[in-house]
């Protein structure tokens, strides 16, 4: 009932761990994998990156602003860390990649022969020349996906940024580049200012907004993409319970990713999957039958 298929990837349920959440160590990934349909590791680039100084995360009502800054040990080191996962879980592992160019992107998949799929981070809003710097440019998006598709047979997903005038143009570019699915969306550009010190809170000044507050915004992105794309959409942004998941599916997503909700509990995904299961048992439907249903007759 809960199974979904995205390209070649079979998931036992449609709830996936989002990149950058508890995703730097095999031990936390293994714990989250227990209940998730799949897990996405923290985005990794060719070389190691320090990330920004603390404060890098600010939790506020209904949302989180972060500018971790793509901290990463680099592809070689991280591959060793992720390899340890396979002793303890058989859930699909999606490796999230960041790079400055299509050449650099195409050098990365080789480090991760064990990956079930790759997700290109074309959307981190707070790292110079990376992520969103590429993800706002239709041609660059297409080229990067093409380059990665050429070096791997595994499914390749494009994680999109909502910080563009028209996300459907970027989605179409990803599809033309050969993406097997899009992930919508990464965080929204944001800032937070402390009224006592009268300074921005995060060390990087600007960051990205995630959590409950962005759910309706992310949902709209999925809705718009569903109207123009043929490839599957993985929804992401502010999901914290099973009803949110059903909303994303009705808007056009085949699966979802969950990140900030782990602030509430390590077992966030467990509760969502259980709720989803109960709901579908009640209606007697499969996930696939619900995808995009809300569009009908509008």
């Amino acid at each position, binding site marked *: 009932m809960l199974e979904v298929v995205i390209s070649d990837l079979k998931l036992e349920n449609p709830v996936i761990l989002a990149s950058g959440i508890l*995703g730097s160590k095999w031990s936390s990934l293994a714990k989250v994998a227990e209940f998730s349909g799949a897990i996405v590791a923290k985005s990794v680039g060719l070389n190691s990156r320090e990330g920004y100084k603390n404060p890098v995360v600010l939790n506020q009502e209904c949302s989180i602003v972060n500018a971790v800054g793509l901290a990463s040990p680099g592809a070689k080191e991280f591959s060793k860390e992720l390899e340890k996962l396979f002793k303890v879980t058989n859930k699909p592992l999606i490796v999230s990649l960041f790079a400055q160019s299509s050449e650099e992107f195409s050098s990365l998949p080789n480090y991760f022969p064990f990956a079930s799929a790759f997700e290109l981070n074309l959307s981190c809003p707070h790292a110079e020349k990376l992520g969103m710097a590429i993800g706002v440019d239709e041609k660059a998006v297409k080229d990067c996906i093409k380059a990665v598709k050429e070096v791997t047979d595994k499914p390749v997903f494009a994680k999109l940024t909502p910080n563009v005038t028209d996300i459907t143009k970027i989605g179409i570019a990803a599809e033309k580049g050969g993406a097997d699915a899009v992930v919508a969306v990464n965080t929204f550009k944001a800032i937070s200012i402390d009224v006592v010190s009268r300074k921005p809170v995060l060390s990087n000044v600007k960051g990205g907004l995630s959590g409950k507050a962005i759910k309706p915004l992310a949902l709209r992105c999925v809705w718009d993409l569903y109207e123009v794309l043929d490839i599957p959409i993985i929804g992401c942004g502010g999901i914290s319970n099973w009803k949110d998941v059903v909303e994303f599916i009705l808007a056009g997503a085949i699966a979802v990713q969950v990140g900030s909700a782990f602030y509430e509990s390590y077992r966030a995904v467990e509760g969502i999957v259980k709720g989803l299961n109960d709901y579908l048992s009640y209606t007697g439907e499969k996930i696939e039958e619900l995808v995009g249903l809300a569009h009908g007759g509008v």
Partner: protein
Amino acid sequence: MYCVKVAEVNKMCRDVVEIVFDRDLRGYPGQFVMLNVFGYEEIPLSLSSPKSLTVKGVGKTTKALLNSKKGDVFGVRGPFGRPFSLPSVDEKVYLVAGGIGIAPLNYLYQTLKDEFEVIAIHGIRCKDEIMYDYPEIATDDGSAGFKGNAVELFLRIADFEEKMRVYSCGPKPMLLNLYKAMKKRNLLDCLEISLENYMKCGIGICGSCVTECGKRVCKDGPVFKGIDIIF
């Protein structure tokens, strides 16, 4: 994040200060806050009482804190994390602190001392590092109290025949020694340890504080039961 004002700064020893705020931070013993020292970094610090932090200068931010004074303002997120649990009435309480690990245990001591028999042990390098007057002192160089480390002193004093509860915080090697000693005696369920892994978010999402067994020090800890950790 909210802001707190410093009401008082007490020098505890050469490179340790106790910073007392003008208001209660509403946390329990064992919990920590993410303290934003404007112009420096945001760092995790344990509550050393309902309204104070006790800081040792080890790097840029903590050294800046050594110079803080009345009226200074800091940003605070938290308190976060799982606190120490309370002992049962029939348990004898031991606090085993190493160095600045005394900070969270001081709050626990102040909370428990009137109702429980509490034996506090503080291991330090030499007598210049004495911070509080109540603990039994162990020094590496023998310049005060027992010559040796905190765990050695604990093993000498502790009455393993009686029901006990042991709380500890300090450097990893010390915690490991204590853990082994308790494990050997089959007493891991009487042990609670506070860990200090490197932290970024403090709220359980970034993953930087995760232990080898997948626990988040900021959210599932920082206080762990002996039976729940694998060193």
